[in-house]
């Protein structure tokens, strides 16, 4: 049997979430195949083919897959599902949107956001915003799985898989792409960044986020935010780190002016090193921080920036 990984990409480059999902897939079933669906995305298939240990890349290149709409995407995955005993996708907005539709059509359950593969049939996954970890067994049916990518290392390059162009599947024509408003940023993607610096309500305004952004640029870091900062309109929604936002696990996570609500901790507590800067010394964020600085962030951040120069 084999595992199929649904690739995450933007039609021009392969997202690292795919390489991490391949790592999980290889622990469940071999060989691993990758399905790249999009438009004018042959380049993406080429990048996927280079991942170590991947045997084959399936390429479905058609306008109907341009925006990864769940209805045609699910039909495509279903059309290729038969030979695989496991189908995986990263737990990205696309993976979370498409895969349950596939699972229901196959009449099998989905295992969401796995953190670890204990054996080919047993997985660990978080429940209650990561306040409890569930060990589940899935035996006797096709396994449909989304993967919490922060919990897996990326499969390195070094492969040379064959690329097979596959025919399109039917489009139920139930949905239509209207438009998108994506934030353009020169900074690294939140979920893949080595360093993340996040701001909370303590920043007090949209303009003050510049203090964080300057340090992010010095460190090559991604910029995140707490839900409070997003709700207050300081930063766009895709910056939110937390249970229902992005889950990150960088080498270094710097939380500035963030109190550390359970929902936020759920999104970042697996970071290797955590730093908290907050003027309230009772803030729960200090309970998980390796380094805590009790200080007014409007003094601490400029000093931090200056210290980086030395």
């Amino acid at each position, binding site marked *: 049997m084999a595992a199929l990984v649904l690739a995450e990409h933007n039609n021009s480059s392969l997202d690292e979430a795919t390489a991490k999902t391949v790592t999980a897939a290889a622990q469940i079933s071999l060989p691993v195949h990758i399905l790249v669906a999009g438009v004018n995305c042959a380049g993406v298939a080429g990048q996927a083919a280079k991942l170590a240990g991947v045997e084959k890349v399936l390429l479905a290149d058609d306008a109907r897959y341009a925006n990864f709409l769940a209805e045609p995407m699910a039909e495509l995955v279903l059309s290729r599902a038969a030979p695989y005993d496991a189908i995986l996708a990263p737990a990205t907005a696309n993976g979370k949107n498409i*895969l349950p539709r596939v699972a229901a059509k196959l009449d099998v359950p989905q295992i969401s956001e796995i953190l670890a593969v204990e054996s080919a049939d047993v997985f660990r996954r978080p429940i209650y915003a990561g306040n409890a970890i569930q060990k589940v067994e899935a035996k006797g049916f096709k396994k449909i799985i989304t993967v919490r990518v922060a919990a897996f290392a990326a499969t390195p390059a070094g492969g040379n898989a064959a690329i097979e162009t596959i025919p399109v599947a039917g489009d139920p024509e139930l949905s239509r792409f*209207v438009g998108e408003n994506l934030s353009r940023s020169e900074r690294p993607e939140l979920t893949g960044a080595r360093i993340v610096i996040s701001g909370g309500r303590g920043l007090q305004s949209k303009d003050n986020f510049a203090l964080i952004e300057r340090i992010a640029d010095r460190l090559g870091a991604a910029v995140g935010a707490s839900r409070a900062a997003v709700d207050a309109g300081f930063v*766009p*929604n895709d910056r939110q780190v937390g249970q229902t936002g992005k889950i990150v696990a960088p080498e*270094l996570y710097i939380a500035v002016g963030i109190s550390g609500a359970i929902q936020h901790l759920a999104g970042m507590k697996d970071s290797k090193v955590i730093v908290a*800067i907050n003027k309230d010394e009772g803030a729960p964020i200090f309970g998980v921080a390796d380094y*805590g600085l009790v200080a007014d962030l409007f003094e601490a951040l400029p000093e931090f920036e200056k210290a980086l120069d030395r």
Partner: protein
Amino acid sequence: MKVLVPVKRVIDFNVAVRVKADRTGVDLTNVKMSINPFDEIAVEEAVRLKEKGKASEIIAVSIGPVGAQETLRTALAMGADRAILVKHDGELEPLGVAKILKAVAMEEKPGLVILGKQAIDDDCNQVGQMLAALLDWPQGTFAAKVEIEEGSIAVTREVDGGLQTVSLKLPAIVTTDLRLNEPRYASLPNIMKARKKPIAEKTMADYGVDAAPRLKVLEVREPEKRRAGARVASATELVGKLRERGVI
């Protein structure tokens, strides 16, 4: 157009979760239960659609123990017109829930089903997508904005890089994200009025659906705890420590 709003009774989001000593699950005894926050947003959106004249009737549905009546009363107090309780004790998986909801939808024939993108207990994020699949309806997940048009609905979705807008043919499924709206507090008169609104009681057998769980939970345990580290006195010292550690 009828709007169907599935709601789930979950541990209140402010309650600290405790894992049972025998590791079979989470301790639910004497714990405050509430409507799943994402489902509350769904009820609010349905009520706003009705206030704008886009929805004719709002039906809240919950699958669970008798206690789920309280959850339905919350939805009724916010503005749902009537409710259905499908009584069930014990575990259910999202696929089972979707199968029951499909049966309810076939009976009620709503033009729109709107529900939370995930429940804050099992964090699965599956039911809406699965229900859409079983009904062969389109899905607008993680909605930040919805607008009813002629025979279709425009859904602006929270996606990884920002926002995406899709147009779905009706009937459709919408799942709510955090920023779709801010749910209202039910007023006392509305809470009183809700007591008189009908809740139809059903059983799983009424729908003839096999919703037995297929996954086996072997164990539930607490996550590894992180311990607090050291305090530093200044940002300068902090930068020094991070350099020593080799992370910057």
